């Protein structure tokens, strides 16, 4: 297992290289006739925890892996962050200005959802396969919380058709969701590498990484890995203080301001 760590202070971007434990099953033994049955993908993370510091402007995770495949095979990598509730608001023009007129609350929705693939998902597999795999935001069975209890009122659950597209557009804009094709390079049908962008607004928590090996629109193998992201450093500490000890945080902010104001007056007092 080899691990490289490179610190680039000027760019303030920390590159964390994650090397996969490469398990070559039969490459060196000349597997010329690889059938779907014995095609394998075995991967492991050498580092399963990423600490993000206060000067965080985003991090890139470099993924390496190996499959027992052949030329023309495809790989899909899905990175999913911790689930949250998301409020999605729709604006409409009222009396000449744009006002939020409707709010949808999405329940148990991934805060981070990135898909990486060797090429366009539609070329890798058909929609039914992707749906079975649960790949793509529209295949996640996301739900909007009903305004009233559906059991009490007998009303159906709100429909999400069309709304997932809007949610995807919004989440992509803030860099948390996305699908990036041609972002995995697969060499000789055996070695692959890709880069996952983690923007500065990612949440702390457990991130699930799915690696799917595809051939001719069929799944050959799949592996899972996980990364724990911890936001450390000063700004994360302050953020945690503000949320966990909010009264003392406010009190401190006031005391700090009084001291700063007094200091400024003392420094610039007219003689």
């Amino acid at each position, binding site marked *: 297992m080899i691990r490289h760590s490179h610190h680039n202070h000027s760019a303030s971007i920390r590159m964390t290289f994650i090397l996969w434990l490469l398990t070559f099953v039969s490459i060196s033994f000349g597997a010329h006739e690889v059938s779907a049955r014995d095609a394998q993908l075995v991967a492991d993370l050498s580092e399963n925890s990423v600490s993000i510091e206060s000067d965080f402007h985003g991090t890139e995770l470099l993924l390496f892996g190996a499959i027992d495949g052949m030329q023309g095979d495809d790989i899909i990598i899905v990175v999913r962050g911790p689930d*949250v*509730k*998301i*409020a*999605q*608001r*729709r*604006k*409409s023009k009222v009396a*000449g*200005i*744009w*006002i*939020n007129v409707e*709010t949808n*609350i999405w329940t148990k929705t991934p*805060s981070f959802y990135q898909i990486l693939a060797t090429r366009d998902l539609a070329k890798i597999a058909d929609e039914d396969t992707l749906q079975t795999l649960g790949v793509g935001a529209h295949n996640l069975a996301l739900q909007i919380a009903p305004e009233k209890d559906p059991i009490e009122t007998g009303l159906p659950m709100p429909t999400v058709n069309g709304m997932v597209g*809007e*949610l995807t*557009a*919004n*989440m992509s*804009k*803030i860099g948390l969701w996305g699908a990036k094709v041609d972002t995995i390079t697969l060499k000789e049908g055996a070695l692959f590498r890709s880069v996952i962008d983690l923007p500065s607004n990612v*949440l702390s928590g457990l991130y699930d990484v799915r690696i799917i090996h595809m051939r001719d629109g069929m799944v050959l193998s799949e592996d899972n890995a996980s990364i724990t992201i911890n936001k450390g450093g000063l*700004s994360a500490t*302050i953020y945690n203080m*503000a*949320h966990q000890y*909010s*009264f003392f*945080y*406010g*009190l*401190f*902010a*006031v005391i*700090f*301001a*009084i001291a*700063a*104001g*007094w200091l*400024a*007056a003392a*420094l*610039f*007092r007219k003689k």
Partner: protein
Amino acid sequence: MHIGIIIGLGGGVGFLSGLFGVGGGFLMTPLLIFFGVPPVVAVATEANQIVASSVSGVLAHMRRSNVDFKMGTILLIGGVIGSTLGVFLFALLRELGQIDLVIKLSYVVLLGIVGSLMLAESVRAILRTRQPGAARGKLHQHNWLHGLPFKMRFRRSKLYISALLPLGIGAFVGVLAAIMGVGGGFIMVPAMIYILGMPTAVVVGTSLFQIIFVTANVTILQSVQTQTVDFVLAGLLLFGAVIGAQFGTRAGAKLRGEQLRGLLALMVIAVCVKLGFDLALHPASLYSVELLK
């Protein structure tokens, strides 16, 4: 947001507040919004910064005993009530997804009024200097407001008026402090002169005294209710503002008042128009998202 931009913004607004003797909260909050700070964070953080600038301001006025503590106490009781209500209203509007709109609309209305009044005043002042001998109006007149109950004597201000008046003014300004992240001096000072009839010398010191407590109350309540106070941002803005204000004060001593006030009025109106225009402009996306926990 880059640290240099934040300090520069603090310095620029600090310079203007030193130059014109205004608090600057009503300019800083919209500017922070223009630079992409979420309106809720801009408002709560500005309240935090104003605590500091009011403390340094009030110390100078206390040395000259230009603070009417009794009047200030009645104003601040009103202010604490008003700002407490304001923060609860703020939290409610935030839950409804309407807080950004209310903040921006309040600014459009307030900056529009303040800007046009200031512009009219400075135009009149410029005309007056050209036409010497123009009569000044009476400072204040007795009206129904002076017939209200709970009369109190304010020795420092040489007034015998109903306590309900400063209480009401304080409460109104307190609501503004909570929703808009302003000290409210630009409303309180004219109200103290024209409605209460306080002597001009004690007005600024007394209003600063009240603003400290009201913005401190807003800072703590916003921290508890909405977690939108960013004291690092407040500290950086303050750092820039303290330096900027020193240069502003020096520059103000050398420059002519009326033209400068006219210029400030035009800036206030420009900010108001920009905010209003952004509200009317077709948004890039009709949908917006917010991650809830």
